[in-house]
């Protein structure tokens, strides 16, 4: 079985302004790296070309009023907030990004591939039911999850490892026990949400898990969270599919954030997640690109590391060039791990009331 890569040349067209952090250059070096590595020529990978998401799939997540606003604003251009303008033609670009997530899910469900990575933009996880924000317009991963459920997948895990809290995704599934939403993110930070006390509501209580981490946090804290909290709870939840909001802005070279994950860290995290999906849901795993703004220093290496891990390739050379090591030293906080362990203790105390796999302490 193979790994699907969802990509469309039109993913390079969307641009709020030529110098906006979420610009086409984000994917250009990744594309360069993939071309030079010959990724798409390898038998381990299948290239998947997406179509725009159908409107009913979009409306399964977003309010009709918001979608009408987006569609109308796309004709002449408009604004959502200071970071998020609506360039002309945005609605089509956003639908193609959401369609990329759906295409990835379909390829997995149809057994065309074992798992898939949608390298789509604009990103989506800050978009809620009735609003866009933080460079996001349509919530790609939420639209994909509802599509998976429409195709018979009952229980889905969303693991959001973007440096920013996936507030839009959290809002959409906050009262839904069929979707376990887990987010690891820098805190305090944009968008301001994502504290450990946000755990869901109504029948969805306990199905939202937030792991806020301080600036300077690196690989070891992510591994700790994975082994101590994510792994046992996801096993207990027993999903039909795992979805990843794959934001690569936790990398130590990212200019918008202050975390210190390395390419090796991404490879290892994806390997762990793939192993989990193998154990729980026949390997069904779909990753959807979210943020990541270190266009040249981080993204080509982290995106490659993720894809290599998904296909089970040797990831021992997934590391940054040595000239970046001083950047890592500057960003990394050796005390961050102690703080994370301390916070995790409190978090476990909350989670143990919802999940038997988390022991009462």
């Amino acid at each position, binding site marked *: 079985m193979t790994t699907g890569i969802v990509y469309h040349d039109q993913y390079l067209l969307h641009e709020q302004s030529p110098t906006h952090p979420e*610009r086409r250059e984000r994917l250009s070096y990744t594309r360069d790296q993939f*071309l030079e*590595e010959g990724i798409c020529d390898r038998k381990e990978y299948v290239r998947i070309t997406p179509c725009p998401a159908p409107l009913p799939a979009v409306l399964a997540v977003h309010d009709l009023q918001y979608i009408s606003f987006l569609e109308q604003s796309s004709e002449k251009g408009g604004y959502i907030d200071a970071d998020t303008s609506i360039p002309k033609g945005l609605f089509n670009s956003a639908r193609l990004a959401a369609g990329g997530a759906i295409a990835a899910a379909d390829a997995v469900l149809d057994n065309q591939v074992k798992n898939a990575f949608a390298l789509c933009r604009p990103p989506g996880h800050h978009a809620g039911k009735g609003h866009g924000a933080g460079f996001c317009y349509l919530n790609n991963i939420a639209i994909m999850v509802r599509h998976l459920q429409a195709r018979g997948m009952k229980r889905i895990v969303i693991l959001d490892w973007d440096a920013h809290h996936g507030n839009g995704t959290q809002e959409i599934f906050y009262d839904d026990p069929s979707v376990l939403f887990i987010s690891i993110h820098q805190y305090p930070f944009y968008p301001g949400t994502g504290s450990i006390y946000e755990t869901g509501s109504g029948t969805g209580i306990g199905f939202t898990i937030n792991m806020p981490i301080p600036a300077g946090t690196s690989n070891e804290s992510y591994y700790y969270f994975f082994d101590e909290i994510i792994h046992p709870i996801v096993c207990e939840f027993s999903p039909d599919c795992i979805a990843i909001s794959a934001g690569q802005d936790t990398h130590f070279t990212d200019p918008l954030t202050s975390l210190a994950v390395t*390419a090796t860290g991404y490879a290892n995290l994806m390997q762990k997640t793939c192993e989990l999906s193998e154990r729980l849901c026949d390997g069904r795993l779909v990753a959807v690109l979210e943020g990541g703004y270190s266009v040249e220093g981080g993204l080509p290496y982290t995106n*490659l590391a993720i894809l290599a891990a998904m296909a089970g390739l040797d990831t021992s*050379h997934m590391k940054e060039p040595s000239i970046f090591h001083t950047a890592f030293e500057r960003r990394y906080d050796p005390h961050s791990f102690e703080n994370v362990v301390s916070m995790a203790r409190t978090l476990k105390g909350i989670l143990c009331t919802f999940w038997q796999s988390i022991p009462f302490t």
Partner: protein
Amino acid sequence: MRKDVFTGVDIGGTNTDIAVIGDEIIAKKVANTTSLVTIFSDISSAYRLSVSTSELLNRFLTGTKPDICTITIPGPGLARTGAVSGAIGHRGEVLDPINPDEVDTYIRQHMADAIAIIGKFSVRNPCLEEDVRKIAQRYYPDTGITVSHTLGYLNMPARMEVTTINAGLKKKISRLISRIRTFHDSFYFVSGDGGLVSKTRAYKNPMALYHSSPATAALGSYYLSRQKNCLVVDIGGTTTDIIPLVDGKPAIRQLIMNDQKTGIDAVWCETVPYGGDSRVMSDLMPWREGNARAFDGKKPTLTDAVNRAGIAEIGVFTSTGLSLAQARRALETYTKSIVSVINATQPGPLVGAGYLAPFLLPVIAHYSHRRYTIPEHASCANAVGAAVSRISISLHVHADTGRGIVLYNGVSHSIPKNTDDETLIHMATEELRHRAEKEGAPPSDIKDVIIDRFNAFDVVRGWQIDARIIDFIIRVAPGITSEAP
């Protein structure tokens, strides 16, 4: 050199075909028992000479391979064999230098017949490959060392494949160039897409000459028959190639070798593993064991079956070593195989090429319900195609306006930092035409250039557009030279 006479030489598995095209066409077939020295000394050095060496390379590639040491400089990313430290970044900057001691030790521990050196992103900056080359020169002559950065249009795995093959071919092509140069200082080779390449380009990338036989058959058959939409059936010694022509041109596709894309364009054809030298036992066999008995061979072949069936009287036609039933079975197997491929391909008449075409094509045409033509000189169509082909040349262009550089096939040149897309395309077009003219292309052959795979994006640093990265390929396409009579 007389520019109105064109000579083509096609070195096949059994024979070498020669065509001289001026006011008239003179074509002849010479057995490969005749030495190349004799063949080339008989050709006037006053004429333009083009050589198709496809069969030589085919035999090399399917025979025992020399031992090649492959050394890679992959930097961060996927694991590669023969890896040493060192890294070039996306914009051609040196991220990590090589470790000379590590390279020297690796080379000494892996001594071979030749060495292939491949660095990731070396087409954006070849300096690390060149550093390794300097160390390799301590142990290998120039004919034993190949680098990959001149293959600008290929990605790293394809450069690994092609550079490794080139390492094995370089000495052989160097020897062939020397032998031909004894008689002809100026000549061309035919590449797999049917275009002519200079001996310098052939020496740097001999793999480009592979699979040129279908290209010369296509060009030669079109030149001789003027059939624009047809199927060329080229009956060779070892195989039969079926080559569709649309508007007088064959389709071009990328060569795949060892399941690896090579990035090398070649004429597309369907190849059936039967030809005039295919062995006949109880039936026709898809292999060659030597010449036909008609030409002093020991074992009967398809050519002998043609003789035994009474269709032709080729060479020594009385001693075929076959029963009539054996011969008929072999001919039936051959015809059925070719007809099934033809029927699965495009409609249109058949144009025959190759020595056996006059004897086998009428039967093939009958069973495939198609009209057919066998033009005069069809037996030497490949040599005719080589003779009338034109120089084709391509440049992979990578520009980084921030660094003020443009790389043409991996070799860097300075450009002004504010160069825009249009100016760059104009500069690349001039460079391409200059190179083609320098190799001898007439202006009428290089009027039209093709640009493809254009990709460009802005580099933003500190909220400002700091540079622009531009990539494209520009080429003079292969075809028949406008100067052909």
